[in-house]
């Protein structure tokens, strides 16, 4: 789950990474009360989960005289389609130099990877693409609590040593907060020291509970409802509903729909060993999406009982046509049950999806 900048900065600050003086406001008028504390040179930053926020007009500068007016302007904006409900008001730093640092999970080495660049800012990605040597990269053993000094020297190169404590603390954040990504762009030097001018933190969805996060905000309401039933669920906007077991098989079902030039409405993985109740909930959930006129159920496996699945489909009794492809235990009983209630069960993925295409067309 992605944290917003102000939330990430709260975390960074707790770990001893200096962040600019700032306050979160929910309405333009609130800004006036905070001016004495923050000062006269201000940055107003929309708290929206949008990439390229600055370029999209989500960051504005102001002074004491223009603060309220600028805040009104920012609250009235749409940043790439997202309305601005919260604004982080910060002191404007006297920046001497901008750097880039991020810590992520490297799938290839199975270890944390730290990236550092001497030039931070909004164009870091394109700069890195143009010149790979612009970004230095070190791998740290996940068994270490700190970045060893030799790796820190390799990472920093000629950059000032005073950046090192902030980077090591960012590594602490990464480790202890179960982060998939911890990023400071830019990390800046000022006459008063080093600051995290921006902050990005993504928490591992499988660690939210132990991080004390009760609700995954990255999910839509229907996705959260699906999660309660133990389904993985993503909405895609087409007309063919999809229910599968196993992420790979379900994805492959979606791809096959695209192969036959159809459009899938969703991804829904019911998980292993689905019983009547779970299948019924899954079918009802998919049928509740507007625009779904046919549902493909594609289940395969050793522990899924086909008669249970058939009962679930029959119990759901939804308006869209349900086309079933399944193989596993009690396959014949399942086929008979479905046939008695007028449902079609087909022998292969390809056949089931071609049949669904005919209904959907």
């Amino acid at each position: 789950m992605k944290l917003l900048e102000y939330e990430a900065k709260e975390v960074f600050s707790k770990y001893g990474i200096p962040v600019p003086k700032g306050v979160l406001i929910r309405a333009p008028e609130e800004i006036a009360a905070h001016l004495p504390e923050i000062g006269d040179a201000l940055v107003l930053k929309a708290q929206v989960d949008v990439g390229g926020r600055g370029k999209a007009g989500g960051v504005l500068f102001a002074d004491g005289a223009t603060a309220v007016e600028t805040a009104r302007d920012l609250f009235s904006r749409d940043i790439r389609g997202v309305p601005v409900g919260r604004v982080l008001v910060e002191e404007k730093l006297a920046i001497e130099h901008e750097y880039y640092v991020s810590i992520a999970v490297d799938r290839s080495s199975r270890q944390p990877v730290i990236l550092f660049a001497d030039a931070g800012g909004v164009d870091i990605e394109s700069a890195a693409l143009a010149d790979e040597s612009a970004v230095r990269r070190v791998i740290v053993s996940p068994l270490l609590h700190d970045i060893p000094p030799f790796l820190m020297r390799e990472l920093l190169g000629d950059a000032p040593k005073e950046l090192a404590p902030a980077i090591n603390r960012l590594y602490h954040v990464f480790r202890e907060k179960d982060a998939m990504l911890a990023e400071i762009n830019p990390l800046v030097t000022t006459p008063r020291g080093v600051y995290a001018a921006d902050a990005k933190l993504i928490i591992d969805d499988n660690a939210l509970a132990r991080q004390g996060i009760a609700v995954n905000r990255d999910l839509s309401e229907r996705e959260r409802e699906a999660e309660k039933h133990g389904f993985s669920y993503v909405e895609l906007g087409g007309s063919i509903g999809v229910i599968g077991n196993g992420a790979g098989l379900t994805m492959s079902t979606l791809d096959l729909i695209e192969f036959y030039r159809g459009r899938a409405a969703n991804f829904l993985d019911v998980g292993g060993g689905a019983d009547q109740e779970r299948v019924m909930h899954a079918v009802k959930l998919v049928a509740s999406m507007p625009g779904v006129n046919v549902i493909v159920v594609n289940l395969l496996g050793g522990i899924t009982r086909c008669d249970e699945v058939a009962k679930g489909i029959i119990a759901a009794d939804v308006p869209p046509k349900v086309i079933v492809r399944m193989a596993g235990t009690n396959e014949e009983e399942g086929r008979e049950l479905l046939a008695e209630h007028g449902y079609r069960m087909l022998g292969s993925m390809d056949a089931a999806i071609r049949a669904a295409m005919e209904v959907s067309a």
Partner: protein
Amino acid sequence: MIYADKSVGVIVQNITGRQGRFHTELMNDYAREVGGRGVVAGAAPGKGGQEVHGVPVYNTVREALREHDATASVIFVPAMAAADAVMEAAHAGIELAVVITEHIPVHDTMKAVAYAELHDCTVIGPNSPGLLSPGECKLGIMPAHLATRGGVGVISRSGTLTYEVVDELTRAGIGQSTIVGIGGDPVIGQTFVDALAEFEDDPWTEAVVIIGEVGGNLEEEGIRSTDLPVVAYIAGVSAPPEKRMGHAGAIIEGGEGDARSKIRRISALDVLVASRPSEIPELIRGVL
């Protein structure tokens, strides 16, 4: 055949749980069928002295290994304790840990894999269906009846999709040497590179099917590393960016790891990529 054969003794961690119980029985049914050793002991803290389908249970892996000759462990321990179970196995001298558990936090997996490496323990998974060498051994939860012995290796990030492909291969008369599910998480022990290196040293295996999906670039890394004939299939051409498609690792992030660009890059290496699972047998026949 890679990673294990019928002579390998297996322990199951959390053998007293629902999944542990169920699959211990299936693994031992298979072991009896092929004349292998199968599951010789189980471990579950506080459950020492019990039996599961005739298999003795011990409180710790170390105690189990004191009484039984086993080198592999299949792990069904719940997510928040699973990394600890991997480290316990590695510490006790287990050489191959197969982690079935899903939803383990990535930081736990990174630590467990690094710790296992220090103890020369090979980790398959997490979020893996395990491995199956038809006619030899089964470590994990793959339905054995779909597979048949032969010369094609299968490496996959998925469970049921693997069964689909194995079923297609078997129906087409193409047998398999070993089918290994390396797991659907972002961080996994054995990657495509490692499994392909094992297959290269295996006299049974003539060609390999790689079943990948969106997220990361480890499929391409694997294919670049091997001289074996390979056919690939990548699931998720219709997956939208920044959405997790069921598996924790199946996500297109920062414009990276989408299926189409993976397919493009793999095709550029002169490797055939199937556009759907039912195409795989025909393509693999072409490289055998």
